[in-house]
Structures are given as structure tokens and as C-alpha cells.
């Protein structure tokens, strides 16, 4: 039985000048438990809108989302979210950030500490428990964000370009960490990214979206995520089929961008 069902999702915004934007049109997807799906597409293709609807921050104009058979109508602890940056609470130290979800549920302190001790060790921050989050580097902050999300035991983890603000080296390390956490926890993950390489490396499934109206353009099932678990990601990038897939998707997105440019030129 599929866990997350996205059925005929459409989203239409009215603009102040009277026109309207079709951000999403008839998007249908279903994810099984434990699947890791990456979403790729040129800017303006509606991938963040899609994620916000799944998270429950936006209501679609038509269509519906079901998780384990019940309708998604708003944000909930069953769907955890990891943001690009700025979502940690600066007034709490690392441990308090990680324990936020359990604390809101009213879990006793001893139990929460057990969870945060374990998770901070998993993400390699056991020595930073009592630090303020603003004293940590960008990569460490994203580790805290991942741990905070996991501490709440969500069914689905939604990641909105979680590694987008990191430098290349840190990003590579964090990609390894995401794969490790995915395998260890068996969570269903939707990951939005701008980087084709990241989408290939981390996406067991890969969705390429096209803009205006935002829709699913192509879908791939890829072997690289499995290969990357507990392996050197640089070797995965050199492995069979990776370079070809990367070039294929890059030129696909390139064409879409060209098309957008052409269309705006005609319009103006």
C-alpha cells in the first residue's frame, strides 16, 4: 500500500494585476514507505509550491494529498521539514533545538535527552550539545536541523534545498549523511534541489518538473542512491551510467530554461 498519495494536484495564484499563474497542473505521484525521491527543475517550475502543499502550509486549488489514507489539511508532526537555512531557534542551544518536537508533545526530560544524545551522535555533534546554534558553522547548523526533524519521528521528511547554502565540500559530506540517515531510519523523503548531481546521488526516484504550468516532465528510477550508502560519493559519480544521466538531465533542463527565455522574449 502506497504511503503518500498526491492526486491531481493543481495550484493557481491570482496576481494583483489581474492575471494568474498556474504554479502546478495535475500533478499526481505516489510514494511508498522508505522511498527517497528527489525533485529537480528550472526555477519557477513549482517544486517549492509542491513541497509546501505536501507540508500543509498551502492549500491546493484542486486535488488532494493523502498520507496513510487520511487527508492532509495542514502542517503536522507526521510530516517533518528541513529548510535551507534560518529555521533553527537561536534562543535555544543545540540540544534544546533537537528536543523541540518531543518537548512540544510533553515528553519528559529524561526521555528527550536520550533521543537528543543519540541523534546528535548520529550527526556527529555530540561535543556541541550546549553550544548556541549561531556559534556553529552552516554545515553543523544543517546537521542540527536534520537531527531536530528526526527527533520528532515523522513519517515523511520534506527537504527544501537543505544543502543549498553550503559550500561544495561540506555539501558533499552532508549528502553522505543524508543517505546514511535515510538508510538507517527508513524514512520516506522528498528532497528538492537545484543541483543535478545532488538529485542523481540522493534520488532513488528522480522527478524532473517543467515550468508554466508546473508539471511532472520526466521520472527516473536510479541506482546511485543505493550505491552511495556507506560508499565514497566520488566513486559513485565515476560509476557506470552516472555521467550519461547527468548530461541527459542537464541538457533537458537547459532546453527548458532556453524555452522560458524565448517565451519571455516573445512576450516582451
Amino acid at each position: 500500500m502506497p504511503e503518500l498519495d498526491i492526486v491531481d494536484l493543481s495550484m493557481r495564484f491570482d496576481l494583483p494585476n489581474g492575471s494568474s499563474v498556474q504554479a502546478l497542473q495535475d500533478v499526481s505521484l505516489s510514494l511508498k514507505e522508505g522511498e527517497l525521491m528527489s525533485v529537480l527543475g528550472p526555477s519557477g517550475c513549482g517544486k517549492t509550491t509542491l513541497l509546501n502543499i505536501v507540508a500543509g502550509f498551502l492549500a491546493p486549488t484542486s486535488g488532494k494529498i493523502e498520507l496513510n489514507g487520511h487527508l492532509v489539511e495542514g502542517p503536522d508532526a507526521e510530516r517533518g521539514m528541513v529548510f535551507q537555512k534560518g529555521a533553527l531557534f537561536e534562543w535555544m542551544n543545540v540540544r534544546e533545538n533537537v528536543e523541540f518536537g518531543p518537548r512540544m508533545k510533553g515528553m519528559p526530560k529524561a526521555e528527550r535527552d536520550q533521543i537528543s544524545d543519540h541523534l546528535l551522535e548520529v550527526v556527529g555533534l555530540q561535543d556541541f550539545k550546549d553550544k548556541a546554534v549561531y556559534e556553529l558553522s552552516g554545515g553543523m547548523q544543517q546537521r542540527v536541523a536534520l537531527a531536530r526533524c528526526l527527533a520528532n519521528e515523522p513519517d515523511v521528511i520534506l527537504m527544501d534545498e537543505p544543502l543549498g547554502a553550503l559550500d561544495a565540500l561540506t555539501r558533499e559530506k552532508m549528502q553522505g549523511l543524508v543517505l546514511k540517515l535515510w538508510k538507517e531510519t527508513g524514512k520516506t523523503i522528498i528532497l528538492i534541489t537545484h543541483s543535478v548531481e545532488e538529485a542523481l546521488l540522493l534520488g532513488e526516484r528522480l522527478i524532473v518538473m517543467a515550468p508554466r504550468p508546473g508539471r511532472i516532465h520526466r521520472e527516473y528510477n536510479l541506482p546511485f542512491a543505493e550505491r552511495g550508502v556507506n560508499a565514497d560519493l566520488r566513486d559513485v559519480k565515476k560509476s557506470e551510467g552516472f555521467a550519461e544521466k547527468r548530461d541527459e538531465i542537464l541538457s533537458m533542463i537547459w532546453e527548458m530554461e532556453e524555452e522560458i527565455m524565448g517565451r519571455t522574449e516573445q512576450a516582451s
Partner: protein
Amino acid sequence: MIVLLFYIGLFAGAFFIVYAMRRGLQSRQDFTSLKTVTFGDESAVRSDRAASIISVLVIFVIWAAFTGSKLFPIHVPGPFVGDTKFTYTLENADGSTDDATVFVRVPAFGEEAEKFEVEPGSGFAKDDAFAAPAGRSSTILFDKNDEAKRKEGAKIVAINGTPIGEGDKVDTGDGTVSLTGKGAISFTPKQGLQMNPIWLPAPETVVSRFFEIANEGYQNFSLWEHLGWSLARVIAGFIAGALVGIPLGYAMGLSGWFRGWFDPIVEFMRPVPPLALIPLVIIWFGIWETGKIVLLFLAALWIMTIAARAGVSGVNISKIHAAYSLGASKWQIMRYVIVPNSLPEIFTGARVAMGVCWGTVVAAELVAAQKGAGMMIIAASKFQLTDIVIMGIVLIGVIGYGIDILMRKAENWLVPWKGQS
């Protein structure tokens, strides 16, 4: 004008001396001192400790030099004080002349001029004795004891041998002599550059007045009661303003209905200076404590409202979304996200509000009060007790500065995450 020139001159001089001394001592080579581009790089501009010390010292030096302070050896020329004399040549109606001397005694500032006598001497013009106040011109009716009076046609033709007519001025060395329209002598002792203590008393006068008032009190209340009452009013008004303003600001930041409701009121009241409300507050609430606290409440209210609203609006939407998807309820988001996130803004607002309240309480006490820092200086000014006025101004400044330092310390302690997101 002269004071300003002195200030600039002293400061420029001090700058070159410190600069020369620094060149002699090789300074530290930290990162900032190795920067070559410093003009326009704000981070390379560091407040120079020496300049701050010199700045304060220069103010005191100028104050001491222009008031003839005993604490400081160098003074600008003071007014003439002591005994002096000049002679006048009187011409009789028949053309004969006679000389007589005017002895002038000028007491120090603030002292009474005492009358004294001299021998009249010979001739038809007799010597005069005159006690003149310092720094002001006074008319000497020289012919009271002369045998030839002005109304009989006698007139002065020379001072110290220098011919003089109406409108001329003769410098006698210690003062200036001119003739009035009726032919009398007008004598002005040299004024010098020093200030009359009624305008600006010497620093030591202010300090001794401070100790006097600290020990004995002023106008039925001790100094600490005056200052304490001002402070208590500020704190009462500020707390009342914060207690109403912060929830109001939160409501405006969280609900469209509240924002629409209060926006016109807040935006209208915000630019109205609290001082402009004094007359209305007096009419409505009277001149005593209620009126003052209401005024301070109004001064703090809008500032705190706007600060709290800005604090709520300033929360990164990612934080709110994250909290919701971690399962927090609305109340928990308020308690654990919105309130802590708005605290830095509220503290900034509180610092501004405390500053405004302190300024407003002094102004309100100027209008009507029995005790308070503002009342102290306005009462003293009515008796021309400039030393108390200056002491009061200094104390008001020191307390205002102290409040701001305390607020900043509290801010660093309570909201260390300020500016860190």
C-alpha cells in the same frame, strides 16, 4: 564663538600631539592596523580612546579657563577687579580748566560694591570716589562735589589728558570712559573673556554645590528624593507603557483585525511628541503624579507597541513553518518562537522608550512638580542659581547615560542571540 575657536584649537593641538607621540611608539600590528584602505571601511574606524579622554578634558579645561576656576592655573583674561583711577579735565564756562581724579573700586563678580571716601583735593574740580560693579558700565556724576556744575556750562574736555567729546571713547588701561548725552562720565571696567558666574559658574562651585545639596537637600527634599522621584515616575510610566504596548503590538502583528483597528491610532500618535501632550494631560489628569505617569505611559506606549509589532513581523517564516511541522500548537509557537524571536526588537524599543521617558519626565517636572530633577533646575533658575541648574543638567545626563548602559548590559545578558539569525 571664541569658546568654539578655543575648543577646535585645543582639540587640533591635542590631535597633533597624540599623533606625534604615537609615531614615536610603534603601535600594535593587529589585523585592522595593517589595513591600507581605512577611509570608507567602517570596520576599520575604531573609536580612539585618547580622543574620548581629550574630548572630556578639553570641555573641563575650557569651562575652568573661562570661569576663573581655582582648580586650573591658566585662565582667559578676567574682568578688571580692584582699584583704578583716571583724571578728567573740566572746562568752566569762562574757559578756565582744572583736573580732578576719579578713584574707582571694582569688586569681584557677585560682591557688593562698597562706598568709600577720598580727599576732594584743590581747584574747582574735586576728586571723586566711585564703586563700580564689575563687567558693566556705570554713570559717574562727577560734578556733585565740583564747584563748577554741568548746568552752569562746565564740561569735560579731556580724560587722562586725551581730548574727549560726545561719542568718543578713551581707554584708561583698566576700563573705558565715554561721555553720556548729558555730559556725565560713563565708566566700563575691562570685561575680559571670563563668564559672569550668573551665566556659568566655575566647576568647583558646581561640585561644592552638589555636596551641599547632597547633604542638605533642596526645596524641602533631599537630592536623592528629587532624583529618585524622577526615576520612579519614569519606571512606573515605562512599565505601564510596556504592559499595554507589548500585548497590543503582538496583537497587531498577529491579527489583521487588530492591525487594521489600531494602525491609524498608532501611526497618528507616534509622531506627536509627548511634550505636546503636556497641556492636555494636565487638563485631564491634573498636575500631580497621575498626570506625569499618564504622560510617560503615553510616551512609552507607542514605542513599545511598534517595537513588539516589528518583533513579530520580523520572525523568519521558516521558523514558524518548522515549529508547526514539529507539532507545536499556536500557543506553543507564541511561547517558544514568536516571543523569544521578538525580544531583541522589544529591547531596542525599551532602550529608546526609556530615553524618551527620561527626557519627558524632566520636561514634565519643569511645568509643575514639588520634587524631581526637572523641578530642581527650574526652581534654581528662578533664583539665578546657575550652579544648581548646571549640576542638575549634569546629573540628568549622567543618569540618562547610566540607564542606557544598564539596558545594554541587560540586553546582552538576556538576549545574546540578538543579530545572530
